[in-house]
């Protein structure tokens, strides 16, 4: 019984399946449109954000970790000192997402009734910083410091063997908060996954207030008034960042191969690597010719596809489906939003191309280190 459950979890956690499941479920959990919202309410998914829903989430997460602790393979990973922050991250992320969504739904119900959000107070009715705020801050600090000291007494900081440049550990992992980026390396070359995308993430995050022209929902929790914003942010945050960190920490073993949580990290596990470039698909498999020797001709299809994705698709969208949005946002903001959005979307696209077609590179010019 337990074995079947473990095998099922192992199977479900494979990126192909878990990523697809999470992505498919996501719009129903954070519904960005009326249609999704109706289904969300019909299936009672909004009950996730009630006390009962929170309790169920807590039990599920705890159940997973308890089950994991009983398993000899997962216990090794779970008990690594530096992996404890990730357990903390899973709990705190789940709790605070639940808490914020719960407050949002309460506020939404109040706004529907024509009331002010619960954060609202009479502007004349103010409290004094001394003692009302200073006292709360003080209690927060004390509690947090107690937590930190107890943790420090109970768990010694990890220290492995002395540094040895000759012995590369397998797997070698970056610090846990960069594991999302390291996971991207499976699908993209380092110049994208390690340089361009981090830069775009930082720029894109800074740009959020400038591209979000929705004036509503300023200074209080509300889902209804900002559902598209919530949806995009939560997808990038929960799936493309936190989920990838979890995959990178718990599920990536020797040679960066995927291992289910209850699988043994076998360093000799073989993964068939038969990834093919788009150019080979086009010239060799499609036209039955050898690859052209001219690099630019060889990769012309890749350049065409990338060009269409980055330059034609936004224009087409602006003229058709997103016409209203284009008019509301104006050319600069729209362009910026498209660059960021398409880059963000390129990760899942590349993932699926890899999984379904074994596609290695869309443009593959290793001669110039230019692979997409």
């Amino acid at each position, binding site marked *: 019984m337990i074995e079947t459950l473990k095998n099922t979890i192992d199977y479900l956690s494979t990126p192909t399946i878990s990523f697809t499941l999470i992505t498919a479920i996501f719009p129903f959990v954070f519904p960005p449109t009326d249609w999704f919202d109706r289904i969300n309410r019909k299936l009672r998914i909004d009950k996730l954000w009630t006390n009962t829903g929170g309790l169920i989430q807590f039990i599920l997460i705890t159940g997973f970790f308890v089950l994991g602790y009983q398993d000899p393979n997962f216990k090794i990973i779970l008990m690594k000192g530096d992996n404890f922050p990730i357990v903390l991250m899973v709990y705190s992320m789940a709790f605070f997402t639940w808490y914020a969504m719960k407050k949002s739904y309460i506020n939404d119900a109040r706004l529907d009734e024509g009331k002010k*959000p619960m954060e609202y107070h009479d*502007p004349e009715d103010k409290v004094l*910083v001394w003692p009302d705020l200073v006292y709360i801050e003080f209690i927060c600090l004390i509690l947090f410091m107690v937590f930190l000291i107890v943790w420090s007494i109970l768990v010694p900081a990890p220290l492995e063997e002395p540094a040895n*440049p000759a012995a590369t550990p397998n797997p*070698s992992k970056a610090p846990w908060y960069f594991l999302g980026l390291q996971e991207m390396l499976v699908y993209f070359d380092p*110049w994208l996954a*390690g340089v361009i995308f981090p830069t775009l993430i930082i720029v894109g995050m800074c740009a959020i207030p400038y591209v979000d022209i929705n004036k509503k929902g300023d200074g209080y929790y509300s889902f209804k008034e900002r559902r598209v914003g919530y949806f995009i942010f939560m997808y990038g945050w929960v799936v493309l960042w936190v989920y990838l960190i979890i995959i990178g920490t718990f599920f990536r073993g020797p040679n960066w191969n995927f291992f289910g949580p209850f699988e043994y990290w076998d360093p000799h596990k073989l993964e068939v690597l038969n990834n093919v470039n788009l150019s080979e698909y086009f010239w060799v498999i499609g036209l039955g010719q050898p690859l052209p020797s001219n690099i630019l001709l060889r990769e012309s299809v890749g350049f065409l596809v990338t060009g269409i994705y980055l330059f034609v698709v936004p224009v087409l969208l602006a003229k058709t489906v997103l016409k209203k949005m284009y008019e509301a946002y104006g050319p600069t903001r729209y362009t910026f939003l498209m660059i960021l959005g398409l880059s963000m979307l390129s990760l899942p696209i590349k993932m699926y191309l890899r999984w379904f077609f074994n596609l290695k590179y869309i443009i593959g010019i290793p001669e110039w280190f230019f692979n997409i």
Partner: protein
Amino acid sequence: MPEDKKKESLLDKVGNSPVWKSIFRSGVPRTRRQRMYAVLGNVFLHLHPARLPRHAVKVGYTWCMGGLSFFLFVVLTITGILLMFYYRPTVEYAFTDIIDLGEQVPLGIMREIHRWGAHCMVLTTWLHMLRVFMTGSYKPPREFNWAVGVILMTLTLLLSFTGYLLPWDQLAIWAVTVGTNMARATPFLGSEGPGASLLAIGDINLIHSASDVRFALLAGRFVGEATLLRFYVLHCIAVPFIAMIFMAVHFWRIRKDGGISGPL
């Protein structure tokens, strides 16, 4: 009048003494006026306004995460200074000094507090960002402060990353090796980045493995003695210095942008 004199407590006596008054000016803050003055007249407390809207002091609204991030920065600075007394950033001593921190130094949990606190600071900055997003507090007029916050979060990650190398164990050098290998692929400026071969004079490449961004970061072709010193200086001086400047801007802008966000 003599009746009141009798009731004066010890706290009042201390509070009204010339020494106390010279330091805190307001005396014992009992009246509304004195309490506001206590905040205004104190360099640390005057980060806050004297009065706040009622929702702003609710932990349910703020989660206290921004405050905790700053508090952790202070905790990490203090424990970090204590660690610097014992730690020497050389390949010869670094690892053994870390062992001594646990075994020889009395009450040696400073490294534990420093390490776990650093992990927590990454989390608290993330959760602070989540809260600010969820309440829409980045919206005008606070757009710029959100951008400053994103930079502070990046600096937090950099602080943690540079500190990762200092114990000089296997975890340290390989995590940093994996992390800095990316720099090699920087477009134009990395030796294995796209476009780097364009930066050449005739046959001579300007960007090679001993002149690219990764070399600048590591002070060498691989993680070694010079890298340890470089990361030590970055971790203890350079990044905290930059972070403090951005923090000053961040806190000042909260006030200048109209204080804490809230519904109108």
